[in-house]
């Protein structure tokens, strides 16, 4: 299983490096989303433009919501990443190629999730920097933020790959992905946001409970994915 997982992950990453779809399309999309959040929520302080030396702060609402908005942007980008991950498995009859390869399904799951995780990590790095820049999000306890990001991303990738497999193949299926993905991932989003807020404020103790919840989620979804992916591919 691990060998197959590694091979699949390597293959997916190679495809991404050669086609650069995530870097060229998904990443800018995430940036645009963050920017739009800023437009929608942040206050444009026009009077301050006149007053010299005034403190052009980003509206309070934006700063408070920055963690949540960051995660929302990450989630929306993740969905597109998932769709791309399965779109590369041939245009139609996406499942046949993977099935015929006689790869261990659990390995396929881990491999795809792993590749997605790497892409998501890069995404989060860039989006995080962008968010701190645009929203004024300053992180005090960095390790907490990173830990939360890691666990949340594992959940995102696990759920994403499972639902991605379910929702790929026929046209009637593809639109199912957001409907399935978002409600299930919402608690993960919430926990990640709370943990990151604790990291921003600098209060690790209050964040630990969220880390625990995130860990439970990650464990559940990874296990489910490994156990169930074979049946999902077969029809």
């Amino acid at each position, binding site marked *: 299983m691990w060998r*197959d997982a590694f*091979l699949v992950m390597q*293959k997916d990453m*190679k*495809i991404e490096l*050669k*086609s650069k779809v995530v870097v060229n399309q998904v990443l800018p999309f995430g940036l645009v989303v963050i920017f739009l959040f800023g437009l929608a929520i942040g206050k444009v302080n026009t009077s301050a433009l006149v007053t010299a030396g005034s403190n052009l702060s980003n509206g309070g609402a934006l700063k408070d919501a920055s963690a949540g908005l960051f995660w929302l942007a990450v989630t929306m980008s993740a969905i597109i990443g998932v769709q791309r991950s399965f779109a*590369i498995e*041939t*245009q*139609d*009859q996406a499942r*046949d*190629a993977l*099935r*015929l*390869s*006689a*790869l261990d399904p659990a390995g396929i799951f881990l491999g795809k999730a792993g590749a997605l995780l790497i892409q998501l990590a890069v995404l989060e790095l860039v989006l995080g920097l962008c968010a701190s820049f645009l929203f004024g999000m300053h992180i005090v306890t960095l390790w907490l933020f990173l830990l939360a990001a890691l666990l949340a991303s594992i959940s995102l990738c696990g759920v994403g790959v499972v639902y991605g497999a379910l929702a790929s193949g026929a046209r009637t299926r593809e639109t199912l992905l957001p409907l399935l993905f978002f409600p299930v991932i919402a608690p993960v989003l919430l926990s990640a946001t709370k943990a990151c807020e604790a990291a921003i404020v600098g209060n690790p103790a209050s964040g630990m409970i969220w880390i625990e919840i995130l860990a439970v989620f990650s464990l559940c979804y990874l296990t489910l994915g490994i156990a169930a992916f*074979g049946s999902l591919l*077969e*029809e």
Partner: protein
Amino acid sequence: MDLVIDFQNAVFISDGYPVLTGVNMEVRTGEVIHLRGSNGAGKTSLLRAMVGLIPIKSGKAIVLGHDLASDRFDVRKDAGLLGHLSFLYDDLTILDNLRFIQRISRRPKDSVADAIRRVNITDKLAKTKVGRLSTGQRKRTALAALLIRDYRLWLLDEPHAGLDEHGRYLVDQLILDFQSEKGTVVIASHELERAMAVSSRSVIISGGSIIAAENFVDQTLRDAPDRYLGADESTIANWKAKEGSFDVA
């Protein structure tokens, strides 16, 4: 004499539709079977069923020792399908694709170079992304993949389609080579002369079942174009008498 494929009244349902309604078929090692049938008869479905892609509903189906009712997954390690789609990754080069296949099937590294050579792909072509290739070139790559994987059974769905004269000759050659190495082949093809030239026997499928599964009883049937499939001898004799020949108008 080992049976490579043993189907008895096998019924396969795909997405609620009965693609195969009771197939009876026996194939021995080293045979090259030509699968014929009109459009919609079930040729592609039969090939896909043999490689375990379609679940079996009733009847018996054993391919290379794997019982498709209980385990249709491991059969894919021993049997390979060459379909309409090439199952290759568009963004990777031919070399990348073949190397990936070589690794997942745990074959030695030089099998890639061997396969590329045998299908007449130049080194320069091997470094091109699959997305840029023509149909024929993709097909050759798919054939190379088949060679790398070292299957015991080949299931070829219209292998000559889309290939130029060289390509067609290549396919025939590969089939004969494979047969001499004790491999078994099932070819679904509308190209009667081409396929018959390499096959040892013909099997006709219609309405999801095999309606003629032996060596030709009568030379008449062997020469008949597809549109007379399913008719009995007297009917064919009648038509032949009336129309004089089987040439398509």
